[in-house]
């Protein structure tokens, strides 16, 4: 199991590397590969690209004139494709995929597939299909099928940004009534920014108290701050529902002190979401600020003050730059966690406070729209990757400008 623990030297250090293999293989198998497979659904076009491959090929070979229905070859291919799909029980998936691109085509595809599999259409197929299902006379369907061939698609990735391809194949804005995702992305980022900023502000007095207190008290304070970190996220979220509900202690206090006449609606609002998220994430910020603050000698501030600097000036020019790395690291951690929040918005937020994660879960659980769920996931991960790279670049720049 540990062939090289006692072995020294370069060969030993190489052999030691083998010990990481089981863990690496495990993470690749249960995490990296499944996530990659799932994310690939964002560009996967199996339903239309493979399921209607013959039809797409026929439309490619003989493109119909603008505004015209294609000829016999395309109809024959369509019948073959749909009959095969029905037999393989893929027809509903094709119908769903086409319906996403062109609303109102779902039942047309399912009915046509059913008839095709029963062998109800005989050559020549064009008049037979048109007689049974006249909706196929709409040239727009054929244009949609032709435009969505191929193994890969950017449809979901564009849809996740409220974009789509227009008739000419150019990227265009989705109609205003169908826009949703840019607002969702903006809201997710905004909530995360507010939570991060609030955590940074609240962490400063807490971390200062922890660093300035005598050792025994400092340990107690630190343990109290960290305690919520170890009680479950779900429990802490549920507790906010209990505390903020109509018959809860906060409303009882508000009424008792005469601040309000009747209990207020505190829960299921943006306010309650902020309260809960900040409480959950604040310990992480305090943790990283304290670790930096402990290394700053208190004499620096004292020196600045004794030289006559006003307190805030001294703090801003002496203390803040020294603890900035801790604040930045803490902010990065809090922001990354906040962006992915799901349970808390779902339980204490209202319908207008949901974040991207909720929509990913929604498209997975309710509508089985894997493509859109994957595209939104790609969006979140791209955002986090961009954040990380910016952070690394900033740190590299900072290091170059301040030779240590």
């Amino acid at each position, binding site marked *: *199991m*540990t062939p090289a*623990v*006692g072995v020294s030297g*370069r060969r030993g*250090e190489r*052999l*030691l*590397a083998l*010990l*990481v293999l*089981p*863990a*690496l293989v*495990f*993470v*690749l198998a249960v*995490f990296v590969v*499944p*996530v990659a*497979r799932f994310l690939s*659904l964002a560009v996967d076009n199996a339903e239309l690209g493979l399921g209607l491959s013959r039809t797409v090929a026929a439309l490619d070979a003989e493109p119909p004139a603008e505004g015209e229905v294609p000829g016999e070859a395309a109809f024959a291919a369509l019948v073959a494709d749909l009959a095969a799909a029905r037999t393989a029980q893929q027809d509903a998936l094709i119908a769903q995929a086409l319906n996403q691109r062109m609303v109102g085509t779902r039942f047309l595809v399912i009915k046509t597939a059913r008839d095709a599999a029963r062998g109800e259409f005989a050559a020549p197929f064009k008049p037979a299909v048109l007689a049974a299902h006249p909706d196929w006379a709409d040239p727009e369907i054929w244009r949609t099928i032709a435009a969505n061939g191929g193994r890969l698609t950017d449809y979901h990735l564009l849809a996740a940004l409220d974009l789509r391809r227009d008739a000419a194949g150019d990227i265009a804005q989705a109609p205003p009534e169908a826009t949703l995702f840019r607002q969702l992305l903006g809201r997710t980022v905004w909530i995360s920014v507010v939570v991060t900023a609030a955590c940074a502000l*609240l962490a400063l007095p*807490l971390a*200062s*108290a922890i660093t*300035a207190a005598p050792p025994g008290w400092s340990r107690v*304070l630190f343990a109290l*701050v960290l*305690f*919520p970190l*170890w*009680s*479950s*996220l*779900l429990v802490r979220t*549920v*507790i*906010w*529902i*209990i505390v903020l509900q109509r*018959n*809860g*202690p906060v409303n*009882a206090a508000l009424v008792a002190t005469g601040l309000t006449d009747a209990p207020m609606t505190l829960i299921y609002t943006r306010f309650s979401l902020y309260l809960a998220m900040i409480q959950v994430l*604040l310990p992480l910020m305090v943790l990283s600020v304290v670790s930096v603050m402990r290394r700053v000698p208190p004499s620096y501030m004292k020196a600045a*003050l004794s030289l006559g600097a006003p*307190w805030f000036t001294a703090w801003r020019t002496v203390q803040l730059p020294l603890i900035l790395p801790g604040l930045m690291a803490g902010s990065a951690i809090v922001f990354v966690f906040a*962006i*992915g929040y*799901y*349970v808390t918005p779902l*339980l204490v937020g209202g319908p207008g406070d949901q974040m991207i*994660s*909720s929509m*990913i*879960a929604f498209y997975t659980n309710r509508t089985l729209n894997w493509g859109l769920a994957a595209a939104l*996931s790609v969006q*979140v*991960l791209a955002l986090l990757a961009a954040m990380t790279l910016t952070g690394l670049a900033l740190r590299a720049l900072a290091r170059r400008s301040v030779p240590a």
Partner: protein
Amino acid sequence: MSAARLRSVAMYALAALILCYMLAPLLLVFPMSLTSGNTLQFPVRGYSLRWYEELIADGRWLAALKVSMIVGALSTLLALTLGIPAAIALAWGRFPGKRIVSAILAAPIVTPIVIVGVAAYFFFSRIGLVGDRVSIALIHAAIALPVVVSTVAASLTTFDRNLLRASASLGAGTLRGFFEILLPLIAPGVAAGAIIAFIISFDEVVVASFLSVGADRTLPRMIFSGVRESVSPAVAAVSVVLMTFSALLLALLGWLQSRGRRRGR
């Protein structure tokens, strides 16, 4: 009062206020869960242990607790078996791509949990493992693995490797050296990793929601599915039990760490 004294008082007052915001909700639930009424309310009208008795009487909570314990134990065991060797390799080994390997091992903990859950659901539904507690334990182990690796690696940095060379020169095999020299000396780090791994699994709700159906519901999953409509006093009671449990584990962790520090001196 001098300005410095005033500032210091203001700082402690502010810190106390913020601490109050962080902890008061957790503390308020204790009396509220002791209500004798049918709903949660404040101020509490009458106190009783009614809802705690209900938890024991209602078999579903105990069944969920059992599932959570099994999943937690399985994932902790798995995270330790994979994590300890990996920590040894990362702490002592020198090989190309070490940083990439570390990054891959850390990926499950920084990826938004919903993506982990959905991807796991997609993956396990293809191989017919959705609804199986083993599938939940596998994903929990992947999430806990980086934490185990980092706590064990931290304890390895203070370990004197000459002890292993000495034991080898005295004729002890590698396995004996591992189990009789290395493991006892890094035990506090391993135990800390194990406790955190268990807490991660025991508290995790999103992956458990995607992967568990019917009988294999974990405790957080039970709470989660119940509270979207209303919070019953039973849920408040469970919350209190879970918080107490976490506090005990945290105290154990602190005790282990202080013991580890003393030994290190």
